[in-house]
């Protein structure tokens, strides 16, 4: 489903080169639950951003479902993210001015066509993460674990093929972390591909495959 070939990423700031990734080769099949493990600050978020099309590699090829993404335009990548990729962030990134239900519906703002059963779909997803009683709460009235569950529901609203999570449990206590990981496993069981970036072994061990990243390159798959 995903194939990265010789992906390199170098940042240029004020004439200074900062290589972050070099010659990353990675293949992930449909339905896998992969953990990318690396200490902080070793390019794992950059790798995830490239997989999520938020960032572009300096060189190399990226195939998503057989399609070369390096040739796509910005708007086409936006459409791809909207339809095929769900994001879960460490800091949840919920909008506190709108309620839980509206947060879950947010990606549909940019979806074409707008699904008729949007609200039912959102409520169903919130039910599946155990938050159907709190759909009219503002996110900041919820606990961290609950907020992350809202974010997962939001990531799934457009039924993406791929779910990307960047340190999803980084801001949660161990109990909430465990709940989130259970939800991920459940989603994975239903056939969705999941990639989690983490530096915690406890998180990585829940995945079906661990990829270790060191100094910007993959040391084992």
């Amino acid at each position, binding site marked *: 489903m995903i194939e990265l070939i010789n992906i390199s990423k170098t940042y240029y700031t004020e004439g200074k080169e900062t290589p972050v990734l070099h010659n990353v080769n990675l293949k992930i099949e449909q339905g896998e639950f992969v953990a990318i493990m690396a200490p902080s600050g070793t390019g794992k978020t950059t790798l995830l*951003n490239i997989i999520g099309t938020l960032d572009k590699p300096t060189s190399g090829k990226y195939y998503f479902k057989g399609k070369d993404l390096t040739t796509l335009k910005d708007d086409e990548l*936006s459409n791809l*993210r909207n339809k095929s990729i769900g*994001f879960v*962030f460490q800091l949840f990134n919920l909008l506190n*001015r*709108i309620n839980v239900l509206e947060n879950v519906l947010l990606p549909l703002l940019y979806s074409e066509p707008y699904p008729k059963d949007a609200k039912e779909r959102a409520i169903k997803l919130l039910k599946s993460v155990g938050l159907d009683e709190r759909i009219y709460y503002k996110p900041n009235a919820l606990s961290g674990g609950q907020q992350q569950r809202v974010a997962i529901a939001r990531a799934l609203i457009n039924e993406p093929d791929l779910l990307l999570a960047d340190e999803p449990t980084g801001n949660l206590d161990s109990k909430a972390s465990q709940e989130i990981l259970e939800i991920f496993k459940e989603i994975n069981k239903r056939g969705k591909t999941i990639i989690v970036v983490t530096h915690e072994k406890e998180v990585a061990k829940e995945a079906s495959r661990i990829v270790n990243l060191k100094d910007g390159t993959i040391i084992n798959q």
Partner: protein
Amino acid sequence: MKRLRFFRILLHSIKALINQKVKTILMMLGTAIGIMLLSGVMGLTRGVEMRIEEVMKTFGPRSGVIFSGGGRIQTAGGRASVEVRLKLSDLENLRNKLGEKAIFSGAIRREGVQVKYENQIQETTIFAVDPDFPYCAEWYLKEGEPLNFFDEKIKARTCLLGTTVLKNIFQEENPIGKRIFINKIPFIVKGILQSKGTSPGGWDMDDTIWIPLSTGMKRVFHTDNIRIIRFKVREGFPLKETISEVEETLRILHKVKEGEEDFRIRTPDFIAKRINEMTKTAKIAGFSLAVIALIVGGIVLMNILLLSLSERVPEIGLKRAIGAKEKDIFLEFLLESIVVSILGMFLGLLLGIIPVWLLPKLLPDIPMAFSFKSFTYGFAFAFFVGTIFGVQPARRASMLTPIEALR
């Protein structure tokens, strides 16, 4: 509605504004003040238009008035002027020379004259007029008989009643053929005048009694002078040229040079021009202030949007991640700016009631009227301000790359 991406984003923008009320109100304020001033200017413009329409209607567009006294001793309405130089001979001469081109009629107007019927006593304005006056003033009878040349010739003690006087002293009674006393002189009522309503100057034009000019001069006011000559240029003759001819003829008759006239000619055009001149400064000042307020308001709006942008960077990042295109972010921020401006417009229109209501109360000379144009112009200006000053913040927001925004 929700099926259209534009409306979904518009709705989302509106929700964002509702959720930050204080900021929204601050952003609205400049536009609101600008639109308030603008609707004040619009109200003034409409008021002036209406007053001019009124002048045209009460005078008739082809008619004019010659007042005695003029030039250096001009006073409002000519009432206080001491010089009285219009004579019956002037009227005769004008008729002889220009009678083909215009109808002329002499009149004396006097306010506060006592009128008595049985035990009812009232004060009213007496017009001593010759038989051509109704044609000049386009003011005719509602009932009864007009004052005719015979009345004029024999200095008849006959009169016509304006509707206000009629109501005040006769109530429901039929006045025709009844005897009333004007300055203790008995008069027989011949007819009732049409109602003319309120004059542009604000007095009740129907509070009047008409008597023959000769009767007025010889029996009531004891004067050889007339105070007013009204005239109406006949259809088919050019207005401006004929008025110039009237002026020239009078100058020759009075042996005065141009600029030293002892009479004044007032036409609806002239009055309209005067009203326009009087209000022009106010209009320009009001409009300039409105434009300045809108620009300042726009700059404030832009800066608040730019400031709030920095705290909304993560939000932009998230939206890019979940599928927003650059143009979606641009549209969202631009719509916020436009919506705020339009909300400001509504507040401004509401506040605009203040100048339109209050000013005429404080300064009754200022004509003010509500104008529907305030809405259309206000909308156009608000939309313009919202767009112009929203572009920069919207562009900045949309130019953020997803990773910059998520960092």
